[in-house]
């Protein structure tokens, strides 16, 4: 299965901020924080389809996300931060008190949809 290294950035978006105030239990919030934005060329190279599932692995852990194409540079992923990104973020603070919450080096691989055996 194809696997490539990326820089992953977790950040904020307006919709995510609105949904935090509506409630983190809502499906809309869960969908927002579980959807990664990726460069279309990178998606093509890895054989990931729009709305497909990917597995993202950092040195601290791994999590599955849905993938959508968007305006991010090649080699970069963007995701609104939330419970799934807690699994990926750095655990050391380098003496600052602040964990590394952005710019993780991650590996990305497509996850086969249930019922299908192979991915391109």
């Amino acid at each position, binding site marked *: 299965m194809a696997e490539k290294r990326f*820089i992953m*950035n977790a*950040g*904020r*978006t*307006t919709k995510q*901020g609105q949904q935090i105030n509506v*409630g*983190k*239990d809502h499906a809309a919030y869960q969908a927002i924080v579980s959807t990664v934005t990726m460069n279309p060329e990178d998606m093509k190279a890895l054989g990931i389809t729009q709305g497909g599932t990917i597995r993202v692995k950092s040195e*601290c*852990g791994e999590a599955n996300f849905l993938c959508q194409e968007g*305006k*991010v*540079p090649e080699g*970069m992923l*963007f995701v609104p*931060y*939330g*419970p799934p990104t*807690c*699994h990926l*973020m*750095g*655990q*050391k*603070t*380098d*003496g*600052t*008190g*602040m*964990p*590394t*919450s*952005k*710019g993780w080096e991650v590996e990305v691989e497509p996850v086969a949809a249930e019922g299908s055996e192979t991915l391109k």
Partner: protein
Amino acid sequence: MTCTLGEVKNRADFIVYWGGNPAECHPRHFTKYTLTQKGKFVPRGRKDRTMVLVDIRETPSAKAADIFLQIKPTKDFEVLTILRALLKNQTVDRELAAETGLTLEQLQDLVDRMKSARFGVIFFGMGISMTRGKHMNSAAILTLVAELNAFTKFVAMPMRGHGNVTGADVVMRWTTGYPFGVNLCRGYPRYNPGEFSTVDLLVRGDVDAALILGADPGATMPQPAIDHLARIPTIVLDPKVTHTSRLARVHITTAVTGISATGTVYRMDEIPLPLRPALKSPYPTDEEVIRRVSKAVEKKMALSTASNGITMRA
């Protein structure tokens, strides 16, 4: 080297946002303080101001910028160091500069614009403080700003996130002398980020109880820290059900400050603003709960010390 947002509104003619996305994260920043407002020394508002955005991706804030500089990830420190070198007319290797994602001409142009500004400000976001380099990146921005003051008036301000995080820092500062990462175990404050800061204490499993006020670390902290909160007796004061309240042993629902409870909130420039509640709440305020808990603990301690024959120090 900082100022209030009122000074920015009335004086700033050169504004840099670095590693932040105010269009999405601080949506009123442009319109209330930095770009569109007409000020005493910038009477034409937006026309009198230049805005530069420095970031690793083209965010919605780029649409509001006059100049968007897209740098490569984790190259903030290098860009800042080159700007400092150019400010002092030192020679910078063209190829090394290109590794940041910008050309030497772009960097020189930025320095020239900064030097010729009448009142410049750099707002720096979490793209600076949460990526590799962290406090060193912030220090590089503050040093650049200090050095710019040899040419013109320049200030820096962090783009603080969430409601009232600035207030927590300010109150900790005037009560203990330090903004965060304070340990009071010895009866006097000790400050050591990395040792006494929340994430470090939780990841190492150093604490055996936690009281969480108006925060949701269960949805934002590294997973080992969340796992430890679930292991120990965690008490949460929050108006809503959150990821943290679900893993806590006790969740006390409190009134929402600013909507149904009075209080003071600190703006990101550390200006305190009184809050007047618009609605009544059946729930107690955070302050009320803490006072009641504190009284109950005092009572219990007095009872236990009396039975032990131990005298409490005042």
